[in-house]
C-alpha cells in the first residue's frame, strides 16, 4: 500500500503498485503518471530503464520510492534534464550502473523552484577514465537540495555547477556520503552540512573523450570555482594512504583555476585528514584574497600541512579524527522526516528563538513541592482564577492577594517559588501573587468562594474565572450572597499586618447576608499611633456611622476628629490613633485600605 509521509510536495497519489515489477522500465512508468501536483509511489523492487528517461520535470510533485528499496539498473545512454518552477522531490531511488567514458549526466535547470534529491543515489560511479558527472547546472534559477545521498567513484566532478549564475541557484548538500570520487562539489554558493568524503581506494581517472589523454582523477571534497562563498559545517574529509591507485593526489579543499575572489569558504566544526602528502587546504591555487577572507572555526586536521599557501584565519587544531563511515549512509531514507505542514506555526532562520542551553545540573532538589497544575486540567477541581496585570502598570510593585474559603493550588501561570499560598489550617487559604510585572499573568485553582482580596493601590489587575472576565468585587459579592464564612470576621488583615501595603482589602468572613442583627465594621488604627490609614469601603446595603462605638485613644489625633464621608453604601475616611466604626447592611463589595489598619466585622 502506498504510504508517502507528510511534507512532500503534491497531493494526488499515483501508486505504481501492480503496474511495475522487478525488471520493468521504471523511468518510463514514472513518466506515464508524473504530472504537476502528484505524488508517485514506487513499490520496492529492482527495475531497469534508460538514464535519459530520468528526465523528470514537474511542479509540486514527488517521486517517492519505498524506503525498503527501489533501484533502477540504468542503461547509461545519455543525459537527462530535471527542473521545476515550484518543487520537485525525488526520494529513495538507487541509480545503478557504471557511467561510460562519454559524459552522462543530469542537467539541472530550474525555473524558480527547488529540486530535492533525497536518498537518490549513484553508487556505481564511472569507468576509468571518464568524463561523466552526476549533475551539471549551467543556467536557471531556484535551488537544489541534495540530502542523504550516496555517490560512488566518479572520474569527474559529481556536481559541476561552476558555470551557473551562483546567486540564482544556491545548492545545499546535507547528510551525504562521497566515496572514492573526484571533486564532490565544483562551484560556489553552497552549503555542505554533515557530509562525509572518504577516499580509501582508487579514484577513476579523468578524460574528455575527444580531448587530451586525461589523467588521474583528483581526490578532493571541493573545488571552488565560479564565485560565491561555500559553507562547510560538521563535515569530514579524509584521504587515506591508499587514496588513489593512479598516483593522483589532491587536497581536501581546493580552488580551481576559474575561482574568483568571492570563492571564499567558511568551515565550522569539521574534521580533515590527508595521508597522501598533500595539504588540507590548497590555498595556493586560489586567488590571493580568498584565504584571508575565509574562516575556520573548531576545525580539526589530523595531518599536516594545513595550507599550501596563505593560512585561513581561525581555530584549527589536531583534534578529532574525521568520520569515515560512509557505508552506513549507503541507503539512507529519511525515515519519514517531514517538513511541518501548514498546521505548524514555525519560525526559522534568524527570527527563530534559539533554545535555552542546559543547566548541567543533575540534582535539583525539592522539598515539599506541590503537585503540578499540569495534570491540572484533568485533575484540578474548582475554578481557575487568572490574574493579569495591566500593561499600563508603572512597575512590578504590584501584589495581589485573595482569600478563599477552600483550597487553593497554583495554576499553570503562577510561579510557586515566588507566589505564595498560605492556609490558616481551618480550610481558609490565601493566595498572593508577588511583584507582578506589567502584563504578567498568574493563575490559581480555587475550590471555594473568594471572600476577600487586595490589590496594591495604583495598579490595575484584571481577573477571569474559568475564562470569564469578572471582578474581585463581583466574586466577593457572590461569595457573600452565598452566605459563606459567616464567622468572627477576623480576616487576616485584622491585625494590620499589611502595613504599607496600600490598597489592602478583605471582604473577610462574617459579611454574609445570613448574619443576624446589625453588623459593625470596625476600622482600627490603634496598632500604629503615628500613622494614619485611609480607607474606602463599599457595601451593597447601607453604611452609617456608629459614633457610640468609634473612639480615639487619646483624643489628640486630629484625624479622628475629621468627618468621614459617607455616601449611602460607601464610606471614605481616615483613621489615626483610634477606631472608626460603622453599621453596615448587605455584603461588603470592596475594601481598600491605604496604610496600617485592622479591619473587623462584629455584631453589635
Amino acid at each position, binding site marked *: 500500500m502506498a504510504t508517502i509521509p507528510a511534507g512532500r510536495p503534491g497531493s494526488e497519489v499515483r501508486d505504481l503498485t501492480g503496474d511495475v515489477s522487478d525488471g520493468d522500465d521504471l523511468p518510463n512508468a514514472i513518466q506515464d503518471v508524473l504530472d504537476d501536483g502528484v505524488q508517485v509511489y514506487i513499490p520496492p523492487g529492482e527495475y531497469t530503464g534508460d538514464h535519459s528517461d530520468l528526465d523528470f520535470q514537474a511542479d509540486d510533485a514527488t517521486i517517492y520510492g519505498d524506503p525498503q528499496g527501489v533501484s533502477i539498473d540504468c542503461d547509461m545512454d545519455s543525459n537527462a534534464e530535471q527542473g521545476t518552477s515550484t518543487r520537485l522531490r525525488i526520494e529513495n531511488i538507487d541509480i545503478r550502473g557504471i557511467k561510460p567514458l562519454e559524459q552522462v549526466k543530469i542537467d539541472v535547470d530550474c525555473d524558480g523552484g527547488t529540486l530535492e534529491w533525497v536518498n537518490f543515489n549513484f553508487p556505481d560511479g564511472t569507468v576509468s577514465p571518464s568524463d561523466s558527472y552526476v549533475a551539471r547546472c549551467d543556467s536557471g534559477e531556484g535551488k537544489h537540495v541534495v540530502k542523504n545521498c550516496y555517490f560512488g567513484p566518479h572520474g569527474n566532478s559529481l556536481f559541476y555547477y561552476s558555470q551557473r549564475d551562483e546567486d540564482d541557484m544556491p545548492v545545499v548538500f546535507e547528510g551525504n556520503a562521497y566515496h572514492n570520487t573526484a571533486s564532490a562539489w565544483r562551484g560556489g554558493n553552497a552549503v555542505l552540512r554533515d557530509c562525509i568524503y572518504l577516499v580509501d581506494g582508487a579514484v577513476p581517472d579523468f578524460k574528455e573523450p575527444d580531448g587530451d589523454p586525461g589523467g588521474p582523477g583528483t581526490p578532493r571534497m571541493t573545488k571552488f570555482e565560479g564565485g560565491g562563498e561555500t559553507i562547510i559545517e560538521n563535515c569530514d574529509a579524509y584521504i587515506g594512504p591508499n587514496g588513489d591507485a593512479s598516483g593522483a593526489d589532491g587536497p581536501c579543499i581546493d580552488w580551481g583555476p576559474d575561482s574568483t575572489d568571492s570563492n571564499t569558504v567558511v568551515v565550522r566544526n569539521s574534521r580533515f585528514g590527508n595521508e597522501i602528502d598533500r595539504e588540507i587546504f590548497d590555498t595556493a591555487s586560489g586567488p590571493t584574497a580568498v584565504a584571508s577572507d575565509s574562516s575556520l572555526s573548531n576545525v580539526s586536521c589530523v595531518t599536516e600541512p594545513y595550507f599550501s599557501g596563505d593560512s585561513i584565519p581561525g581555530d584549527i587544531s589536531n583534534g578529532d579524527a574525521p568520520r569515515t563511515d560512509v557505508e552506513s549512509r549507503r541507503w539512507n531514507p529519511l525515515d519519514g*522526516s517531514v517538513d511541518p505542514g501548514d498546521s505548524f506555526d514555525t519560525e526559522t532562520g534568524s527570527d527563530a528563538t534559539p*533554545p535555552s542551553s542546559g543547566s548541567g545540573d543533575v540534582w535539583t532538589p*525539592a522539598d515539599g513541592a506541590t503537585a503540578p497544575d499540569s*495534570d491540572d486540567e484533568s485533575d484540578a477541581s474548582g475554578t481557575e482564577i487568572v490574574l493579569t496585570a495591566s500593561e499600563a502598570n508603572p512597575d512590578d510593585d504590584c501584589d495581589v492577594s485573595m482569600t478563599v474559603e477552600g483550597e487553593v493550588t497554583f495554576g499553570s501561570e503562577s510561579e*510557586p517559588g515566588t*507566589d505564595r499560598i498560605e492556609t490558616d489550617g481551618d480550610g481558609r487559604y490565601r493566595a498572593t501573587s508577588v511583584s507582578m510585572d506589567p502584563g504578567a*499573568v498568574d493563575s490559581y485553582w480555587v475550590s471555594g468562594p473568594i471572600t476577600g482580596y487586595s490589590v496594591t493601590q495604583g495598579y490595575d489587575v484584571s481577573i477571569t474565572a474559568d475564562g470569564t472576565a469578572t471582578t474581585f468585587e463581583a466574586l466577593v459579592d457572590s461569595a457573600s450572597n452565598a452566605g459563606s464564612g459567616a464567622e468572627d470576621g477576623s480576616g487576616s488583615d485584622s491585625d494590620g499586618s499589611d502595613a504599607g501595603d496600600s490598597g489592602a482589602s478583605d471582604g473577610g468572613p462574617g459579611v454574609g447576608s445570613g448574619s443576624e442583627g446589625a453588623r459593625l465594621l470596625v476600622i482600627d488604627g490603634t496598632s500604629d499611633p503615628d500613622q494614619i490609614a485611609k480607607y474606602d469601603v463599599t457595601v451593597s446595603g447601607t453604611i452609617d456611622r456608629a459614633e457610640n462605638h468609634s473612639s480615639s485613644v487619646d483624643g489628640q489625633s486630629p484625624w479622628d476628629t475629621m468627618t468621614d464621608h459617607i455616601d449611602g453604601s460607601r464610606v471614605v475616611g481616615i483613621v489615626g490613633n483610634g477606631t472608626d466604626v460603622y453599621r453596615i447592611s448587605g455584603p461588603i463589595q470592596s475594601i481598600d485600605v491605604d496604610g496600617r489598619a485592622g479591619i473587623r466585622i462584629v455584631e453589635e
Partner: protein
Amino acid sequence: MARDDDDGRSGKGRLTTRRALMKAAGVSALAFGAGTAVGTAGATPASNGQTVDLGEEGLTDGGSIDPYLETHFDSDTVVHVPAGEYTYTGSGLGGSYSNAALLGSTEGVVLRGASDSDTPVGPTITATDGSVRLENLTIKGAHGQPNSRWRVGADAGARMELLNVNMPDGAVDGANATGIYTGTEHAGTLWVSHCHFSNFGDTALDVSDPYKGSNGTVVVEDCDFVNTGTAAISVGGDDSVVRGCYFEATAPVSTGAGGQARRAIVVDGPGTNVEIDDCDVDWTGVASAPIEFTLPSTGGDGTISDLRVTDPGSGLLSAAWDVDRTWTGENINVTEV
C-alpha cells in the same frame, strides 16, 4: 513573581522553572515549620500517617538501604532518607502503596546499583490510592542488558510522583535498557518532574504504553534529557503532557538502540489532547529530526507550542502519517546551525 504574558512563551524560562522549584523548596520548608504553607500539604502524601527517618533507624552513609526500605517503606508512611550514598540492589521499594513517600534529603541522596550491571535493579512501584512520591534520589550505575528499568504507575484516581529522581548513568553499551517505564495498566496520574536522564541508548522515559490499556495520564515537566538515544521521552496516551523540558543530543550515547535515529520526543500512541509545550531542544549533534510520530500514533491529536529547536537542518518532524491533519503547532522556532 509572575510571568510575562509574552505571546504565550513562558517568561520564566525552563531553567528558571527548575531554579524556581528549589526556591519553592526553601519557602515550603520554612513554612512547614510554621505550619502554614500550603506547599507542605502536597509534599507529604502521607501526612496523616507515620514518618520514619532512616537515619534515626540506623542507616549510615555507604550502607545498604535495601533492608531499611523493606522494613519501613509502606503505605501511609513518609520515609526520609538522610544525605549520603547508599547501595540499592532492588529490594524494598517494589510493591503497591497508598499515600507513601520516599523523600531524600535535599542535600543529596544517591542510590547506587550493584557494581555488576547485569544484576537488574528495577522495582515496580504502583500507587493504589492517594499519592506515592519518590523525591530527591539519584540512581547511579548504568543499566545493563537485563531490564533494569524502574516501572511505575498508578491505579485510577491515584497518583505516582517522581520528583528530582535522576538517572545520569544511563545504560552500558549494547544494553537495550530503558530508564523509567509505565505499563499498560497505568490508569491514574504519573507526574515526573525535575528529573534528569542521560546516556540511554534506548528510551529514557518510556511512558507511552498506557494508551494500549488503561490510558492513564502522564505529565512530564521540567526534566532534562541529555544525550539520550532512541527517544528521550516516548508518550502516547490521552492528555499526556511534556512541558518545560530540555533535550540535548550533542554527543554519542550508549549503543543500545540498534542504530535507530535519536529522537527527543517520540509520539508512539494515538493519544488525544497531547500537549508538548515550552521545551528546548539542542539537536546539533545528530542528523535526525528531534520529534517523531510513529505509525501507532496515527489519528491522535495534540499541540506543540513554544518549542525552540537548534539542529543541523535535519528537520523538525519525522512522521509516519499525515500529522498536520490533527496536530497543530504554535510558536515553533527552529534554528539551523
